[in-house]
């Protein structure tokens, strides 16, 4: 581990003033401490933001607002989340382990780095870690990698389950910097790798996520997060589906569908949503809609199973929701 200095600012203003070249914010530490040990990240200054007042789960003007420093475990069990937005609670509870959920924050979860083994290994080339050095994953071990949104420079999967659920719910992140505050739709916050996979999101230097908001969606009560993985728990997704259904009289009036484990960023599936709208809540209609889930996919040598697995994951989520009273 390279040496760094440490400070624990008490206000957002102070944190933003201390942020600069070579600094990194520290919240739960489950990404940063791990990657600093591996020397994948080498901050010179660590700014521990856990004392900042970025907490609370509340409904304001109908929208659910979650402080960036709320811990995953607490948000998963919060009555304003678990009842109205099961897809969020399930995505959180199917993430990581209880210990990590007790540590990791909502803001940190959204900024976690890919699990690509080449990114995590400083002996390997990696365009995300060392721009221009190459991408061994494209021709090497790529079973866990993305099939959607990839480029010739990077095929790393975005690892967050929560982000997939939030993108399905049209959530926004609220940001603060020395220039002021702004909000960005989470779907636009994440960038495609293109030729610059080192640039993963819209954050400007020193900018901080202060909270996340989810617009009101009454029918999100009928929502779920289905995660398919190599182990039954404590594992990243091979494929996942965050789905919410507005179901009345056996007909889908509206649907939200996003996929995880398959994209270089959380992947909303508007074509599937459109195909579901007005369709009868039956398995054949679900299969027809889910057939579009992997449109545009570019599988690699070891993950050619993912398009079909994704389609089936979406169907499973839809069937489960249709079966709920």
């Amino acid at each position: 581990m390279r040496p760094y200095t440490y400070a624990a600012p008490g206000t957002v203003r102070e944190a933003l003033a201390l942020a600069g070249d070579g600094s990194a914010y520290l919240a739960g530490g489950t990404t940063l401490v791990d990657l600093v040990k591996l020397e994948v990240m080498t901050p010179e200054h660590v700014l521990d933001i856990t004392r900042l007042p970025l907490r609370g789960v509340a409904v304001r003007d109908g929208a659910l607002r979650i402080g960036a420093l709320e811990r995953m475990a607490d948000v998963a069990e919060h009555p304003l989340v678990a009842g109205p937005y099961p897809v969020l609670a399930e995505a959180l509870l199917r993430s990581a382990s209880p210990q990590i959920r007790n540590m990791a924050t909502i803001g940190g979860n959204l900024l976690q780095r890919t699990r690509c083994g080449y990114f995590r290994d400083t002996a390997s080339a990696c365009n995300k870690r060392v721009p221009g050095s190459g991408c061994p994953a494209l021709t090497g071990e790529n079973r866990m990698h993305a099939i959607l949104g990839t480029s010739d420079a990077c095929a790393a999967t975005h690892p967050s389950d929560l982000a997939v659920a939030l993108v399905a719910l049209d959530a926004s992140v609220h940001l603060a910097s020395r220039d002021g505050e702004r909000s960005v739709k989470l779907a636009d916050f994440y960038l495609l790798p293109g030729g610059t996979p080192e640039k993963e999101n819209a954050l400007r230097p020193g900018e901080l996520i202060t909270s996340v908001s989810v617009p009101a969606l009454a029918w999100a009560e009928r929502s779920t997060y289905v995660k398919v993985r190599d182990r039954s728990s404590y594992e990243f997704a091979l494929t996942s589906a965050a789905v919410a259904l507005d179901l009345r009289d056996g007909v889908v009036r509206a649907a939200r569908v996003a996929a995880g484990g398959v994209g270089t960023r959380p992947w909303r599936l508007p074509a599937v949503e459109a195909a579901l709208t007005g369709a009868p809540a039956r398995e054949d209609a679900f299969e027809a809609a889910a057939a579009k889930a992997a449109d545009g996919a570019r599988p690699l040598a070891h993950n050619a199973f993912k398009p079909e697995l994704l389609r089936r994951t979406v169907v499973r989520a839809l069937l489960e929701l249709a079966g709920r009273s």
Partner: protein
Amino acid sequence: MEQASEPERGVSRRGFLATSAAAAALAAGTAGAPSPAAAATAGPARAGASVVRVTLRVNGRERTLSLDPRVTLLDALRERLDLTGTKKGCDRGQCGACTVHVEGRRVLSCLTLAAGLDGKAVTTVEGLARGDELHPVQRAFLECDGLQCGFCTPGQIMSAVALIREGHAGSEEEIREFMSGNICRCGAYPGIVAAVKAAGERG
């Protein structure tokens, strides 16, 4: 439990490692120190510090440490406080062997920086028993054969104590899910689940 106590071994491996680690930490701290003034302003740091002074309440006892800000809670416990019950397995947040409680919540001490814990209460496996009387979860692990080599056991037990308190010991399925952050390479899972279930039922 049947181990020889430390003093009988003379210069123990553990003692040697502790001394070496302290020396290494000191050297690293010196290399990274921008100025003595930064160290002096440390405390619950305001400016960027290369040495941080923290006071922890570990198993009920106040301990004050001056630490390089890179030191994890795991290393502080093992190398500075001689509390070697907490195990270093992967040191990457993947195995759960280092599980301890901070303010009553189970966390991974290998991914927790000690610098951020000023004023916090930490409980390790050494803090569970009352004198010679084992904690009910420790007793259940013995009775149910919830271990083979024992390396992961302190983490399993700390996780299990928290899991029961969280109310997640309702069924074997729930226990397996909420113990999933603790890996046992010997595969003693049936005994571990039985132990957690038994301890949970006893309340």
